[in-house]
């Protein structure tokens, strides 16, 4: 679980996770990036006393729920450029279904239950991103 205030490349942490879990059948991952169409910059705000503990609770819940051998979530904060990675979620498990489901679970919860606020700069200025109704319905799948 890491919050990073500068850019990162997903490859090294993914390789480390795979090496750390030799007993796993595989590693599933998702890398979310800043869209390039019409977006000039993205700012991610967070509230440190809540954000990191929230991510750690999420990790504990995911490991328990899916019986993971390992997982990682790296999330950017601060100012991001188009096409740069925002979030990397990855899970290692014995079977691929557990690993893929865990990544979906992590992403669903990060999207709508973690303490991040996001605004985009477009040609006409800054716009705050509202949570989407479909992000909440995505969460309902897990309850």
């Amino acid at each position, binding site marked *: 679980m890491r919050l990073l205030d500068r850019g990162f490349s997903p490859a090294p942490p993914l390789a480390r996770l795979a090496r750390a879990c030799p007993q796993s059948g595989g590693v599933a991952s998702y890398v*979310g990036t800043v869209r390039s169409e019409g977006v000039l910059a993205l700012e*991610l*705000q967070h*509230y440190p*006393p*809540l954000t990191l503990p929230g991510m750690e609770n999420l990790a504990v819940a995911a490991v328990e729920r899916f019986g993971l051998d390992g997982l990682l979530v790296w*999330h950017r904060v601060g100012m991001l450029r188009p096409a740069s990675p*925002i*979030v990397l979620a990855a899970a290692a498990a014995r079977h691929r279904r557990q690993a893929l489901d865990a990544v979906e679970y992590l*992403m669903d919860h*990060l*999207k*709508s*239950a*973690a*303490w*991040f*606020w*996001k*605004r985009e700069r477009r040609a006409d200025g800054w716009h*705050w*991103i*509202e*949570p989407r109704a479909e992000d909440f319905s995505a969460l309902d799948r897990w309850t």
Partner: protein
Amino acid sequence: MSVRVLFLGPLRDLAGRGESEFVSASGDLDWPELLAVLESQVTPALADAVRDLRVKLAINGAVVADREAVVVRDGDEIALLPPVSGG
């Protein structure tokens, strides 16, 4: 007493700043009193936005379950948390 209030996400734009320090001669603040401080010392638009029930409140890093029942004490850090849009 003095309290620090943090404005997260879109509330930052309404407040025109990321945080404020409020000093008052009176004692602890309850929820209506806190709203009154925001209204008079920042802007009424901010107080209105905070009245939205989706805006959550954290005191010293812990989210408050029932914000109506809150009591703010000297030295507290209050974070005003609008709906998130992460990922």
